């Protein structure tokens, strides 16, 4: 059955696809199209020609070969929590959803690795690791829905990057179906492998433009010991960086996040959470550290005292239990979801850590000048030099007009990013949403090399075309 207005696949193509994955795994109804045809962003109308749910690597290969023959564009779809319109099929593409490649197998306790299908949910891997007395350290608020294939394709970061790095650091090997339907087995779990280019690294963060990640061997870590959380009230951005420097000089932080007072107000109001303390502050820093011995908390307290004396911190709390640590984390983790009701225009920008205060004050000046009537919510992984700027849409403003006004200001923001040698997309990828701004972060030569690399993997140009850059 085909409910879709545009565009339709020929009956012959539909039946060939049904032969590959089974008729009930070729979805063309409007509901499936809307469900599988877009990610977390809401700026495009999903119009996939069909949604396919392959159950094996061979089926993925067969679909891609057919698509290459017929010149059909493909959008790989993971958990669709992406924030850059990467997993958006707005041009009648075939959506390949990896949900069914969800096996976790071949756990290797010596190497601390495990083989995951692309469709394994991030949280499932975290729980699997926990069951083995280990830890998968890539974590963020959407981990309950995002998939390992999606995490790899966006090189997802999150809240533990300061200590554990990005997804890239945990991919010991991966299998990729290229744009011609061939299967590459990249790196095979090796720790050391300097035999030529590491193509695996090109695939990580490629947003599905080089092929479809179908499987990965993921590395696991030792679990953190008795993590404690502090939330500190901070008067200004400069002070946040001083606090970061003070703590990092003495401790290995697991996380260093920040959020603004408005962000806190929104989560407190909409999630029914408790404020950490009543003392007013412009910004809040959330720190997590391991307590290997009692001395760690002592150290953290001594640093707190020092920061208060210096005027960098106005107040703070420390978690006294796991439940409290989780509640404090929610103050930060619930922000994205809380503000999603205002269709926020998100900028995910970064610079080197030391430049953040100057960078931010310039961005803030531009943004406050340009959006005097808009609410602006700041938060992010400031310990990595990464801030999320969120402009909330006033309820009475139409989406298009809102998007247009934000787009204008984005340009100025990205000019600042460029001057600081920063990135227009620190961890969310480029997708459709940021591709116009890619030149602010990447030289023409770089982008041209990217195009050539894409052609090498995907000569027919069918893998997520139009994402990151135009062919």
């Amino acid at each position, binding site marked *: 059955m085909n409910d879709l207005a545009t565009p339709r696949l020929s009956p012959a193509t539909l039946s060939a696809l049904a032969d590959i994955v089974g008729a009930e795994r070729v979805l063309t109804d409007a509901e499936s199209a809307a469900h599988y045809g877009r990610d977390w962003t809401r700026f495009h109308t999903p119009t996939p020609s069909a949604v396919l749910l392959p159950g094996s690597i061979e089926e993925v290969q067969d679909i891609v070969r057919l698509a290459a023959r017929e010149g059909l564009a493909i959008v790989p779809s993971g958990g669709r929590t992406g924030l850059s319109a990467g997993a958006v099929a707005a041009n009648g593409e075939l959506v390949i959803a990896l949900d069914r490649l969800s096996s976790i197998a071949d756990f290797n306790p010596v190497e601390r690795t495990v083989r995951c299908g692309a469709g394994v949910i991030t949280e499932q891997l975290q729980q699997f690791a926990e069951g083995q007395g280990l830890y998968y350290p890539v974590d963020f608020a959407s981990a309950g829905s995002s998939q390992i294939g999606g995490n790899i394709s966006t090189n997802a970061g999150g809240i533990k990057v300061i200590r554990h790095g990005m997804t890239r650091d945990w991919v010991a090997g991966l299998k990729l179906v290229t744009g011609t339907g061939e299967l590459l087995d990249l790196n095979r779990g090796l720790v050391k492998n300097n035999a030529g280019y590491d193509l695996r690294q090109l695939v990580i963060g490629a947003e599905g433009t080089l092929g479809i990640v179908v499987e990965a061997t993921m590395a696991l870590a030792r679990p953190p010991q008795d993590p404690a959380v502090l*939330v500190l009230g901070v008067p200004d951005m400069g002070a946040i960086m001083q606090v970061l420097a003070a703590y990092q000089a003495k401790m290995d932080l697991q996380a260093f996040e920040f959020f603004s007072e408005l962000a806190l107000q929104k989560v407190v109001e909409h999630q029914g959470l408790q404020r950490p303390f009543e003392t007013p502050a412009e910004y809040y820093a959330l720190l997590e550290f391991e307590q290997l011995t009692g001395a760690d908390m002592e150290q953290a307290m001594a640093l707190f005292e020092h920061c208060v004396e210096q005027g960098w911190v106005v107040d703070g*709390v420390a978690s006294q239990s796991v*439940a409290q640590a989780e509640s404090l984390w929610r103050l930060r983790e619930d922000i994205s979801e809380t503000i999603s009701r205002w269709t926020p225009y998100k900028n995910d920008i970064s610079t080197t850590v030391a430049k953040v205060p100057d960078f931010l004050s310039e961005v803030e000046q531009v943004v406050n000048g340009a959006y005097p009537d808009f609410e602006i919510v700041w938060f992010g992984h400031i310990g990595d030099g990464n801030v999320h700027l969120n402009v909330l849409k006033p309820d009475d403003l139409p989406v298009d007009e809102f998007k247009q006004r934000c787009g204008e200001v984005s340009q100025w923001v990205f000019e600042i990013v460029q001057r600081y040698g920063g990135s227009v997309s620190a961890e969310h990828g480029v997708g459709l949403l940021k591709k116009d701004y890619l030149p602010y972060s990447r030289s023409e030569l770089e982008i041209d090399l990217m195009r050539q690399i894409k052609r090498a993997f995907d000569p027919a140009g069918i893998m997520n075309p139009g994402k990151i850059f135009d062919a």
Partner: protein
Amino acid sequence: MKVLVAVKRVVDYNVKVRAKADGSDVDLNNVKMAINPFCEIAVEEAVRLKEAGVASEVVVVSVGEKSCQEQIRTALALGADRGIQVETEGAVEPLVVAKLLKGVVEKEQPQLVILGKQSIDGDNNQTGQMLGALANMAQGTFASEVKVDGDAVSVTREVDGGLQTVKLKLPAIVTTDLRLNEPRYASLPNIMKAKKKQLDVFSPADLGVEVKSHLTQLRVEPPAERQAGIKVASVDELVDKLKNEAKVI
């Protein structure tokens, strides 16, 4: 008015506990410990009474090994004025705790004693009631609201099917239910101040109590693991399985 609050050190509410391999007890090796959540609510209520000018002093007491001083310090950071540890070894059953608390009540002469309705490890729900009987004090258990009024306290209790309000003459005992309040976070400045607050240690003998055990724990085992669910293709299959496999219809 002096308020005495009892707190217990228990396995952190969010930790998944495991039984020891030999089934003799819960494995507490390297497990995160915290204040029993109901006791935390008791501390919060006492501190609020103090902030409202109703209580003049809040004394926190814990019965347990030396490590329970951590939880006493947490209560001090939340706003209690001083602490008392009654040092015991191993697991102490509710009757003994109640007797020890009675000893502390006699020493301190509080007008109000606030305890959690139960601790999440033993789930006994006995200590407050036993203390009420031993100390011959009125008791308002499962409190969701506490109002002190002159020489009386009214306590709204969460009972099956609704709320019951009782008025007790002071001195009295209150045990807390979950909805009484939402405990605050311990602020870092207060955690530091708490380190300097007075904490006295007594032995059971100081309180004239002999620690005896009347209960023997036979076995600890984890709950049966839930079997994975299955998907059925049709209503008929479901009915068939309910009838013939599960035998529930």
